[in-house]
């Protein structure tokens, strides 16, 4: 079998034509006080010119470490200890810092994850962009400035000639990421390295950025390494995929091949953790049990063995190498099929919950407003007012899950806080039958780090004087069991838990007082894909078992539509579409919903290719001065003067749906 040749032989291709970048057996270590973290542990791959490679993998699997190793941008105590990094035939790893500085920015451009912190906050864009251009392209400052403006223009910064003299803080996150891209491209690099360039952005902006990157790299013919954990993005964007696990590439190959025929059990599980699109019945999401190995400890055998359903004796003694599984498709697993039959084994069907009109309404919200008014020292100045929530009405029945989606800043969290009574409403009514409890986005800050988990879970009980010590302890054990944690966790502290475990504890705490509704504000956004699936499964189970109602807030439309019975789409403090989840997702009525859904990448390269990509242009207007007409008019492809003049009200669109658009029908 020709394609089972070992990879080394493959790399030394006799054609003589070298790849753009060829990484061979890269090892990167972090020499910490507690031991050596082998973050990258023998990674080899190559990129051809104009090729886009996506690297996916769990958090901590060494993606960033690998990418940063390429240009030796690792912070102390990180160190590239071995390997070759041949860029156009020259080994970057053997270059001096000074030589490397001629490569950085000129031959290889880099884009980082967080646009908010990746630009120097006290320097104008011009001062950050122009000097590198002058240096790399040997231009005088005037030409460099023109060049910089040109790039800013290219990445879609309106009024680039003026904006170049702005400070980063004067721009939104999306704009800053565009600036980053412009900066990275301005040296006309042959290779781009992008470490999660869109993770911190809204879906709509994310879609814009991805399209932009795609367009610009194919235009300049640059190769690209693109790190992400969003498989949807991979499907939309990449030519090839590398899957990393515990510092190694476990699977590498053309994107369609990998999505269609994943060979490594990890890749297979990963793909199965994603809520399926367009499936009539809901199945439980796949879960990857356990934790990745501690990369400080020596590893015997396959790194994935402990979490692999198909692991056998050989996996425990010998680590598999990458072997060819198809043209350009390699995987590192002893089993040719990976999980094979074991795959999808536990993907049991989730029986749909029955809802009826007789179900008790537990939450009713009517014409809710929340305005944040600033303070003005000068009495004659009108204080600025943010209308965060601007007249919304909702209701939730017992056992029902309401999903709220919308771009950042549209007021989702504010609604949640109002529901919980954490902030007083400016006007409007909130009626909650029983008690509302909350699960927060950031598992790290939702717990008092000084409290033991038992105390955290019990806190609501203690505060409300529920039961005696024994009863409370019993209830705590019960709750831990409900969220699938062991009793031994009771005496731990929050920092001793993983993100997923923490979120379970948060759910346990929220359930302690048997609330009628649990409000979960982005409960999974901070979690890894595999862990996210666990939490979603848990919530689905709980709502069935306990018949609690959930309010599920997220900007991840796939997840929301998977878990919710009803969806409310918010835009600038208002609900623009409201109705049954399946219906809204499959057949969005409001142009904004349509745009949101179009922006969501689906983890299926074939489907992605077929999808119409018309990313929403522009950004959210300032909530400080809302337009008088339809708030969405400024970004709506179908907006008319009528829209701009008159505000559409939320009206029945179908039996189970309402939409706020003049042209919804």
């Amino acid at each position, binding site marked *: 079998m020709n394609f089972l040749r070992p990879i080394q032989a493959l790399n030394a291709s006799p054609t003589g034509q070298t790849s753009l970048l060829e990484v061979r057996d890269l090892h990167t270590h972090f020499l910490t006080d507690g031991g050596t973290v082998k973050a990258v542990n023998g990674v080899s791959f190559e990129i051809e010119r104009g090729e886009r490679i996506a690297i996916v993998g769990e958090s901590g699997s060494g993606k960033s470490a690998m990418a940063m190793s390429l*240009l030796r*941008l690792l*912070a*102390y*105590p990180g160190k590239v200890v071995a390997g070759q990094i041949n860029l156009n035939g020259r080994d970057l790893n053997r270059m001096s*810092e*000074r030589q490397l*500085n*001629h*490569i*950085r*920015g*000129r031959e290889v*451009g*880099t884009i*980082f994850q*967080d646009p908010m*912190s*990746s*630009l*120097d*906050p*006290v*320097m104008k864009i011009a001062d*950050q962009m122009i000097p*590198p251009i002058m*240096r*790399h392209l040997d231009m005088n400052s005037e030409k460099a400035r023109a060049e910089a403006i040109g790039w800013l223009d290219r990445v879609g910064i309106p009024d680039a000639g003026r904006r170049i003299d702005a*400070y980063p*803080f004067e721009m939104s996150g999306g704009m800053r990421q565009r600036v*980053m891209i412009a*900066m*990275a491209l301005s*040296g006309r690099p042959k290779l781009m390295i992008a470490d999660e360039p869109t993770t911190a952005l809204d879906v709509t902006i994310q879609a814009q950025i991805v399209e932009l990157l795609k367009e610009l790299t194919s235009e300049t013919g640059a190769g690209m390494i693109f790190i992400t954990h969003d498989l949807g993005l991979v499907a939309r964007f990449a030519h090839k995929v590398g899957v990393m696990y515990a510092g190694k590439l476990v699977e590498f190959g053309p994107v369609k091949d990998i999505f269609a025929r994943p060979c490594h059990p990890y890749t297979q599980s990963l793909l199965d953790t994603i809520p399926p699109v367009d499936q009539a019945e809901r199945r439980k999401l796949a879960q990857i049990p356990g934790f990745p190995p501690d990369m400080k400890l020596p590893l015997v055998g396959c790194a994935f063995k402990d979490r692999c359903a198909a692991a056998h004796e050989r996996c425990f003694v010998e680590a598999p190498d990458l072997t060819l599984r198809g043209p350009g498709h390699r995987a590192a697993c002893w089993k040719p099929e990976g999980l094979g039959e074991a795959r999808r084994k536990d993907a049991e069907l989730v029986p749909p919950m029955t809802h009826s009109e007789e179900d008790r309404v537990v939450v009713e919200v009517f014409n809710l407003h929340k305005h944040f008014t600033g303070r*003005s*020292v*000068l009495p004659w*100045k009108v204080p600025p007012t943010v209308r965060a929530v601007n007249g919304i009405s909702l209701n939730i029945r017992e056992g029902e899950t309401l999903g709220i989606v919308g771009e950042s800043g549209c007021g989702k969290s504010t609604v949640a806080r109002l529901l919980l009574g954490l902030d007083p409403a400016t006007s409007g009514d909130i009626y909650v039958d029983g008690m509302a409890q909350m699960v927060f986005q950031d598992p790290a800050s939702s717990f008092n780090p000084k409290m033991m988990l038992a105390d955290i879970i019990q806190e609501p009980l203690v505060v409300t004087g529920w039961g005696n010590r024994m009863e409370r302890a019993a209830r705590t054990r019960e709750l831990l069991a409900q969220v699938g944690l062991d009793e031994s966790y009771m005496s731990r502290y929050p920092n001793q838990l993983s993100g997923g475990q923490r979120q379970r504890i948060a759910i346990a705490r929220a359930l302690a007082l048997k609330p009628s509704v649990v409000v979960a504000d982005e409960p999974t956004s901070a979690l890894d894909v595999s862990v996210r699936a666990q939490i979603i499964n848990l919530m689905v189970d709980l709502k069935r078992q306990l018949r609690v109602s959930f309010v599920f807030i997220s900007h991840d439309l796939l997840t929301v539509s998977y878990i919710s019975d009803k969806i409310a789409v918010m835009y600038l403090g208002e609900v623009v579409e409201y109705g049954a989840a399946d219906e809204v997702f499959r057949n969005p009525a409001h142009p904004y919903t349509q745009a949101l859904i179009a922006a969501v990448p689906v983890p299926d390269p074939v489907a992605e290719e077929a999808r119409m990509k018309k990313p929403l242009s522009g950004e959210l207007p300032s909530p400080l001065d809302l337009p008088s007409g339809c708030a969405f008019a400024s970004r709506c492809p179908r907006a008319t003067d009528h829209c701009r003049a008159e505000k559409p009200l939320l009206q029945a669109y179908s039996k189970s749906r309402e939409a706020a658009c003049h042209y919804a029908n």
Partner: protein
Amino acid sequence: MLTYSLKRLAQLFVTVLGVVTLVFFTMRMIPGDPISAMAGDNLSGAALDQMRTQMGLNESLLMQYLTYLGSLAVLDFGNTVTTKLPIIQLILDALPVTVSIAVGTIILTVLISIPLGTLAAYMAHKGHKTLDNAITGVAMVLDLMPSFWTSLVCLLIFSLALGWFPASGTVTIDDPVQLMRRIALPVLVLSMAQIATMARITRTSVLEVLSEDYVRTARSMGWSELRVLFRHALKNAALPIVTVVGLSFGNLLNGTVIVEFIFTLPGIGNLLVGGINSRDYQMVQTLILFYALIFVIINFATDLVYRVFDPRVQF
């Protein structure tokens, strides 16, 4: 900007009034008054009492306070008790000396501690702990020596043994060379105590900045370490440093008291100690008023500088 200034002005007013009131009543709570302080061994009680009545120290406290506020309102700061000289004149004469010590100290401190702190931070960032520890260690030892002790040691070394600087001699701002020679040692002594703090702050803030994403961005654009350190890191780290410089300027006015005494410098610390010892109410009140004003103004200036350095802060 207008709003901001108005707010600061109101704040300044409240603070200064509070300080003035506090000092007024503290001074009068302290046992002894100007007359009893003046009394040496050879003055009898009767003679002193006569003087006391003459000076009107027997009016009610409230009356004295109101009178004082009244005179403040017309910017009349009065004369000293013992020497009957206009207080404002004395302060204005002494102020340049103290201010030059303070400014000199700040300059020396900044010149030494910022490169030192930056170097330490860079070393720490690169994992070279030994040099980092050595720098912080030396700075700390300097910091922890009482200034009256180091003052004398400096005098013995630089003045007596080496003869570089005089231990005495008149000081005026009219003669800058003499001024420099006279304040060199005090500035050195005071800087010792400041350098450690400032270097530590610099180290911490530079270190923090060095692990910021934008530093990595700059490096990814091909800039050398040095340029990254000075163009990006230091500029961003400047914010906390500026704040500390401002604060320490305020504290320095305090610190000059001891060195002014030992190095016989006619600054306001000297006036303050003299004023307190002679229970010269008017003198102490006025001095404290000045201290408070300087302090508040420096805070204000620090704030302004901060805003200049950081475009993100809006007025």
